[in-house]
């Protein structure tokens, strides 16, 4: 009996010593494992951060390249398009719907042959194959319906609303479009005018560069960095207004602040970020602009000036015309002379 008791006591004693030791050992191993995991996590985080930075940089380069694509494409199209315009343009600028019309349309209306991507008609929901039957209440029917539409558009001012009635699959539908600035009503053929006494020659008017609208100030200049968000009803409640465009990132030297909600630009109320861009794009550098904003839930009028094109403050590539007339890219840090 005593022997059994002694053995039991001994076993309990051994177990009492071994158990804490094994717990300590297990705890050490766990700590080491945690430390190892933490180190791996840190390394992973660092790698992730580096990759994030590289991705952001690549996306910035992609965006920069997109700006270049837009600029170069517009410039490349200038000679052909402007030449055609010079042949067919005959009169003051007029608004466009953003469609191509079939000149062989029937007598029921003018058939839409193409819809310009991103144009006013596309934005409103007009489709290829729709037949325009009236413009602002004026019927389009009979002979030369496409010409009738073009003529009707002469009476429409850019940025004004146009009611367009179309026939789609036999059913009549009405769309309200915001007409975009056009290029002049060039479909007018004026009969020959009898000779008039010679007048002193008028110096040629320099052509307006295509980049005047949405030019460098917007695409690659100081306003290019501005970020806008169309206001939703929920956001609107937060900012104290039910309409407008929120400025997420304000440009420098433009007197707007992050968190401002643009309510009107010289009386024109922007409905979306794109619309605000288009409105701002109608101004020239140096032109004064009155912007009404909601700032910290108070209405404020901001008088500002569209900035001249300036350095972007970070390395960038700029399209420049060299002395030989060829266009090439300058990889230039603002203020530096080291063009390559």
């Amino acid at each position, binding site marked *: 009996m005593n022997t059994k008791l002694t053995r039991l006591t001994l076993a309990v004693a051994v177990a009492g010593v071994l158990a804490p030791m094994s717990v300590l050992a297990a705890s050490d191993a766990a700590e080491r494992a945690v430390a190892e995991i933490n180190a791996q996590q840190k390394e992973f985080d660092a790698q992730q951060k580096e990759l994030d930075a590289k991705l*952001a940089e690549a*996306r*910035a380069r*992609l*965006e920069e390249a*997109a*700006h270049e*694509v*837009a600029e*170069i*494409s*517009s*410039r*490349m*199209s*200038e*000679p*052909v*398009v402007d*030449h*055609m315009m010079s042949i*067919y343009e005959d009169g003051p600028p007029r608004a*466009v719907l*953003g*469609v*191509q019309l079939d*000149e*062989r349309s029937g007598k029921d209306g003018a058939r839409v042959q193409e819809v*310009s*991507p*991103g*144009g*006013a008609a596309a934005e409103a929901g007009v489709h290829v194959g729709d037949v325009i039957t009236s413009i602002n209440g004026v019927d389009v029917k009979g002979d*030369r319906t*496409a010409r009738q539409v073009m003529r009707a558009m002469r009476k429409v001012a850019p940025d004004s609303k146009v009611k367009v009635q179309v026939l789609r699959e036999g059913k009549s539908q009405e769309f309200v479009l915001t007409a975009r*600035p056009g290029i002049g009503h*060039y*479909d007018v053929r004026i009969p020959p005018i009898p000779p008039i006494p010679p007048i002193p020659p008028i110096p040629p008017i320099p052509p307006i560069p*295509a980049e005047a609208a*949405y030019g460098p100030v*917007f*695409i*690659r*200049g100081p*306003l*290019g*960095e*501005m*970020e806008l*968000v*169309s206001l939703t009803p929920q956001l609107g409640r937060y900012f104290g207004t039910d309409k407008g465009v929120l400025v*997420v990132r304000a440009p420098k030297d433009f007197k707007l602040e992050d968190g401002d909600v643009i309510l009107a630009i010289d009386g024109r109320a922007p409905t*979306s*970020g*794109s619309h*605000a*861009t*288009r409105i701002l*794009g109608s101004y020239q550098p140096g032109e004064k602009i009155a912007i009404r904003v909601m700032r910290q839930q108070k209405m404020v009028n901001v008088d500002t000036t569209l900035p001249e094109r300036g350095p972007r403050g970070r390395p960038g590539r700029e399209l420049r015309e060299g002395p030989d007339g*060829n266009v090439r890219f300058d990889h230039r840090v603002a203020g530096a002379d080291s063009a390559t």
Partner: protein
Amino acid sequence: MHDSIDYIQRLRTLPTETTPPYNWQEFQRRAVPARVATEWRPLAVAAALLFVVCAIAVWGRFGGGRHLVADSAAVEDGGRNADPTIGHNGQSASLAEGTATWSAGVTDGSGDRNAAQAEGGRSSGTTSAGPTQSESGIAARRSRAIESWLATLPQEPAVVRVGTRAAVAGLEDRIAQVDDLMTSMRIDGTRSDRLAALQRERLRLVGSLAQVRYAEVVASRSP
């Protein structure tokens, strides 16, 4: 022993051997015309090919091919032949694209080409017909394919970056102006080479718009 007798009996019961249909001489006689026919077959194919080539050459010299050659040249110089006042640095790329479009159209096959011609003929009441219209039709179809992709994108990203949006707006407005111009030109019955040149510019602008919009979408999804 019994087995062998059985086999012999079986062999005897077999029918007598039939005579061959013809002997070796007959076989040789019959083989001669076949050989002659085999020798003439490639010659006949070659003659047919020669005839086709000659027919194409004659057609190219005196028929519709003349228009094809002329219009190909017009494509190569971007319609400068048609209108000497057109010419600029950027034209070459347009022309390369136009030529590529034309080549693509040719390799598309006749059905495709005919469809394009039909489309060109339908869409432009112009004074000259042929490959320029076909090219215009192909450009229109390519443009439509890009436009259908563009239509799948939202009208604008959630956060609009003014710079990129201005680039998009500039291209969109330019395309709308070109479309307006093309309508006016068609109404006035403009020459098809001018329309084709404008159609090429439109295709280029639409392609650029797709690239800029793609970049805009990618950038808007950055964290």
